[in-house]
């Protein structure tokens, strides 16, 4: 019996990796078939958010701690790597890991007091800490306060992650990022930690009785999630070439990071990617097509879509595929 379970689990995990490789290969050739630069840019952004949202999902989904302050980790990553690059000339290829380290540490430190809170108290506390950081950053002269930092362009270079027309190189940069975070999530799903966190999320009392110490396992989830978000922030800074507190630390960014995972399927391996693939194009296209015509319609469309998706598919968009997979499995059985 146990052997059968383990067998199907192993088979499922093998299938996931194969599917992951197939999707990776598809995404790697996708821009070659698209000449429209705007669409390519959209895909780059969707890949970034797929990675960010997967990072959020490690804490919010697998561990069940709904953070509304992930912009903080994004911002720390972006600022760390940008400051290292513009002030000390350290390549962002290294800087992004320094950024990840700092943001992971920050997430750990935020977790220390906040994991004593539960449910909505935790969510509001992370929101407040995120907003405090944004306020302080806007008044901190060392990081150029509200003025922000421009990463000027001095010629193409992979070592500096700088490209004249950034779209295609950054497609692969962001793809690598999304794939890396996906891989981390996949490893976690199969690890003892992943089992712990699912247990924590599903039933705190039961998890405790299993001898899992909840607090340290939440802290570990926060650190990994924060670090993964910080790397994304560093890549965003290189991609856009400009960061300021408003665009890297704002509350709205925290929501944007969480949203793809929620819409796609919270606590699932494919949810963030699927959610980002739907949400980012819808949001950006509704702005591009409707935003300039009549103010407000783009927001109405976007808001209505979020309501409709959340109500129609509470378990996320992945459930479309899961239902089919289950049906197929039943058919074979």
């Amino acid at each position, binding site marked *: 019996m146990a052997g059968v379970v383990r067998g199907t689990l192993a088979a499922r995990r093998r299938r996931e990796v194969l599917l992951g490789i197939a999707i990776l290969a598809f995404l790697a050739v996708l821009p070659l078939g698209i000449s*429209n*630069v*705007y669409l390519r*840019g*959209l895909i780059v*952004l969707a890949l970034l958010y797929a990675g960010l949202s997967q990072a959020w999902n490690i804490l919010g989904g697998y561990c069940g701690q709904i953070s509304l302050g992930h912009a903080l980790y994004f911002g720390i990553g972006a600022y760390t790597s940008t400051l290292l690059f513009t002030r000390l000339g350290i390549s962002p290829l290294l800087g992004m890991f320094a950024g990840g380290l700092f943001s992971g540490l920050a997430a750990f430190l935020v977790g220390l007091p906040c994991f004593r809170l539960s449910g909505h108290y935790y969510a509001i506390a992370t929101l407040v800490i995120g907003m405090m950081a944004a*306020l302080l950053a*806007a*008044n901190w002269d060392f990081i150029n*306060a*509200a*003025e*922000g930092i*421009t990463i*000027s*362009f001095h010629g193409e270079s992979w070592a500096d992650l700088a490209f*004249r*027309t950034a*779209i295609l190189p950054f497609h692969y940069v962001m793809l690598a990022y999304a794939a890396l975070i996906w891989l981390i999530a996949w490893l976690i799903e199969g690890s003892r930690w992943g089992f712990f966190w699912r247990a924590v999320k599903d039933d705190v009392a039961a998890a405790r009785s299993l001898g899992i110490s909840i607090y340290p396992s939440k802290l570990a989830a926060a650190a990994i999630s924060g670090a993964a978000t910080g790397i994304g922030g560093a890549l*965003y800074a290189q991609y*856009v*070439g*400009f960061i*300021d507190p*408003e*665009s890297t630390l704002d509350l709205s960014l925290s929501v944007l990071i969480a949203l793809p995972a929620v819409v796609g399927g919270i606590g699932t391996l494919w949810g963030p990617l699927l959610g980002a693939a739907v949400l980012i194009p819808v949001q*950006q296209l509704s*702005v*591009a097509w409707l*935003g*300039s015509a009549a*103010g*407000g319609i*783009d*927001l109405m469309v976007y808001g209505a879509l979020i309501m409709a998706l959340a109500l129609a598919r509470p378990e996320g968009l992945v459930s479309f595929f899961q239902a089919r997979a289950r049906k197929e499995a039943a058919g074979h059985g």
Partner: protein
Amino acid sequence: MTGVRRRQLLAGAAAIGVGTGFARRARAAEEIKIGAVFPLSGNAAAIGQDAKHALETMADIINGDHDIPMLLGKGGGLSGLAGARVRLLFADSQNNPQIARSAAERFITEDRVVAVIGSYTSATAVTISQICNRYQVPYISADNSSPSLNKQGLDWFFRPSPTDIDFTKAMFDGFAAFGEKTGEKVRSIAIIHENSVFGSDSAKLQASLADAAGIKVLANISYQANIPSLAVEAERLRAADADVLMPSSYTSDAILLVRAMHDVGYTPRAIMAQDAGFIDPAFIAAVGPLAEGVMSRSAFAIDAVKERPAIPAVNRLFRASGANKDLNDLTARELTALQVLADALDRAKSTNNLALREALRATDIQGDQTIMPWAGVKFDATGQNMKGNPVILQQQKGEWRAVFPFEIATAPPIWHIAR
């Protein structure tokens, strides 16, 4: 092959070359696309929507058959490009630097615009100007006033409007001149500013210029924009009681601040605003008589009709474009930015990017050919207009009147700061 035949052949080839060249130009000439990136939704949407009306008004002046006494005010289309018409494409930046960047990139690569105009906030101007520089397409900064923008070392950046340095200097020049004229010299100021780039930069400049002029700064208050209440800030300003209050605020906070000062019974002897919220018609409408006497720096003076005869006709067209309000500092700058760009296109006689940049660099427009009170438009090596001198406006009986410099002033300043 004889010499003659060879020459004829060459001439023929040249003729074909000219012919195709002309045909291409004529096709391009029908419509020249220009990308405009502004915040059309979100917090600053009102500004962006006004900018849209302003640019459309200028496009209509260029394309349509009007008779307005200014550059490109007569006849239809651009004569240098066989009567070509300009066509504006708009994109919403949502006031977000990343979205502004991708909008500019889409304009350049998909729509093949000849230039990009923007963008209200300096964060979006940074990313748009950077991307324009990479693609070698001119960015015309219409209404960004941050002094750092033309110091990025970009070759494709052009700004017809003055910067905050020019604006702030004009305020202190105004103080000196008013003091000279009336004998009531400014001895102290109080600064209040929102704490994003706009307000912080403005406050820094004001504090340093005050220092240089030997004027005391009795209060320097920074606040977060869109805060629910500015009551305590008003109290602190009342306690400071400086000769001149110098606010740098957006519309929402400007309304709140002026009402809060009124609520605590404080009437500053003079208010010299850094534009923005204080010149928004919504601000005047909201605070009504409390706006009387408020001064602001501006790049535009709507009442300078004698010196700039085009203003009434342009303003009428702007009102009719759906804006339903008079031109103000921002909309006049946006409108003029398109005029400057169109003039360069007209002289370049081509939509080629290098030719257009050369034409922009050679720009030399006399002030009376615009609606602006400037000496003219002539760019320095960084792409900054050297002749865009600002003015000081004052609310007098519900109207904005130019009160400084005295050469173009239409009314004497109301200035009673002596205790």
